């Protein structure tokens, strides 16, 4: 939230009238509710010292999720709108930049896939360099230097210095 009082013009609001995407979230909540109930009904009841068992809680949660999803949809239909979160580096007057989001998520996923086979130093370098690129960094060499430095420093401090679990991967024996 910017403290200076200037009215934030919302692109979506002016273009469509109301924030209909919120119904998607209601549907998601309802779907989670159904999934939770379905999973709970699958649990067989064991007899034992525990009169409650593992089943009631998820059933209750699932039912409450359905109720909240309905109330939420009602709120949206009445024109209710959640306030998007602001912040130091956030400009809410722009549309969501899906390309940047997707690139960032891709950089993140690359690390998740490569961390065990290649090791943290390589996958972490790719993560930092790729994320910085996704966010608009065009100093490729500088980005790479920082990425390699960060990966090596964290690997030596945490994995070797403090015994934190980070894989060495293909560089096992080199580092």
């Amino acid at each position, binding site marked *: 939230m910017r403290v200076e009082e200037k009215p934030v013009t919302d692109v979506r609001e002016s273009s469509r009238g109301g924030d209909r995407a919120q119904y998607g979230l209601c549907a998601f909540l309802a779907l989670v509710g159904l999934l939770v109930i379905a999973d709970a009904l699958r649990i067989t009841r064991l007899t034992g010292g525990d009169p409650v068992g593992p089943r009631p809680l998820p059933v209750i949660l699932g039912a409450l999720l359905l109720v909240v999803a309905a109330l939420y949809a009602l709120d949206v239909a009445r024109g209710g709108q959640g306030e*998007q979160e602001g912040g*130091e*580096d956030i400009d809410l007057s722009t549309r969501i930049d899906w390309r940047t989001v997707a690139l*960032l998520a891709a950089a993140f996923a690359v690390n998740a896939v490569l*961390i065990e086979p290649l090791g943290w130093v390589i996958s972490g370098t790719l993560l930092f360099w790729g994320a910085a690129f996704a966010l608009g960094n065009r100093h490729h060499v500088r980005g790479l230097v920082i990425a390699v430095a960060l990966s090596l420093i964290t690997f030596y401090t945490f994995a070797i210095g403090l015994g934190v679990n980070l894989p060495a991967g293909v560089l096992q024996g080199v580092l």
Partner: protein
Amino acid sequence: MDALGHLLGGFAHVVTPLNLLVALVGVVIGTGVGVLPGIGPAMTVALLLPVTYGMEPTQAFIMFAGIYYGGMYGGSTTSILLNTPGESSSVVTAIEGNKMAKAGRAAQALATAAIGSFIAGTIGTLLLVLVAPVVVTFAISLGAPDYFAIMMLAFVAVSAVLGASRVRGFASLLLGLVIGVIGIDAVTGQQRLTLGVPQLADGVDVVVVAVGIFAVGEALWVAAHLRRSKGEVIPVGQPWMGRDDWGRSWKPWLRGTALGFPFGALPAGGAEIPTFLSYLAEKRLSRHPEQFGKGAIEGVAGPEAANNASAAGTLVPMLAIGLPTNAVAAVMLAAFESYGIQPGPLLFQREPDLVWTLIASLFVGNLLLLVLNLPLAPAWAKLLRIPRPYLYAGILFFASMGAYAVNAQPFDLFLLLVLGALGFAMRRFGLPVLPLIVGVILGPRAELQGRRSLQLSGGDLSGLLGGPVSYLIYAVILLVLLWPLVGRHMVGAVRGRAA
């Protein structure tokens, strides 16, 4: 007095060269990361958890104490110099603080914030020493139904009282509770919501949830709306205050402390309400009300003190009952658990050394903060200029490292991405984050206490009601839930009379 004796013992543990160094490192890292734009205190603590994995518990908690207070302090520096506060507790500080900075009084704004934080933090921690043992004595007499009721109150309070929309608060809470259900049931050993994925059998680690929602969610959300124009950072020299500034600051510091501590200790208190109340109080009591809105030092001194005192107050329910009331406390509770330590009344009996060392290190950390931050402010201000691509790439980098380090399985990284997407959606749709985190942490415990209560009563639902304490708590819950109806009715009645 018993508590003071323990506290002195705690100081004896902290004041060794190695532990002082650990405290210093914690304060510096906490402030440095807290100053970085986009990183609030909760994310600071979540991201820095892995730093402490290799340490023994005592040192880890000394470092946490430093990170906690350092992160709080760093956030206020950001809001004074950048005007766009990252977290809601600094919103009020930014109102007058940034106006002061723009008027060339950044040095005084930072000084009153630093000294006010120190005074409020010290008094607040002292109050913690006095109040926590009393709460412990009370908490020991509580049974399973009472704990169940307290947790229900915490759920209702974080969802319904904080934030603008109740339905969005409850949606967030329920998602958190569902995440808490995932895994093997502790009593019967049956799997719930694991969807056949073996890595989910142990449940989702709270650290992974916190890092995913706070750090990855934030990075994705910033990526969607990255501000391309650079924010204006106001240059600052060495913080200092003149005689007049001292005269105008000391009363707001004390009043802010008095407001902040009790609110921090309440189940839905947090720092937002007391900082706001402190601002209003100072505006009313000030001899220079005309300066408010143009950079009144009272408007920085009071809210900053309230903010820090509330941070100390938060530790009362966290340590004495095991009840987190804000996001930072929730993450710290997760940190305790990763060491196999269960906060609550028994903690004071089983691990008195650990608790009192933690509390003593809060005093030490507070003093270190004051000594460090007055001279280091210009250096911290430079951190605000860090290029944003590197900043958020760094956040993802450390988030991945921390989440992987918990269990050493790549699966957690994919989980982190899914939780990041959830955090993204929550920011997009204005769902508050705190209820989800509290739900994940307290959900399994509430279920445990609830089932224990019903076990004692042989499955009879009256077992959940327990005794007088829980009656009282359920009455408060009803009041909180029905308040909008009651409030509307009363406003209507008053209006009717006026007409």
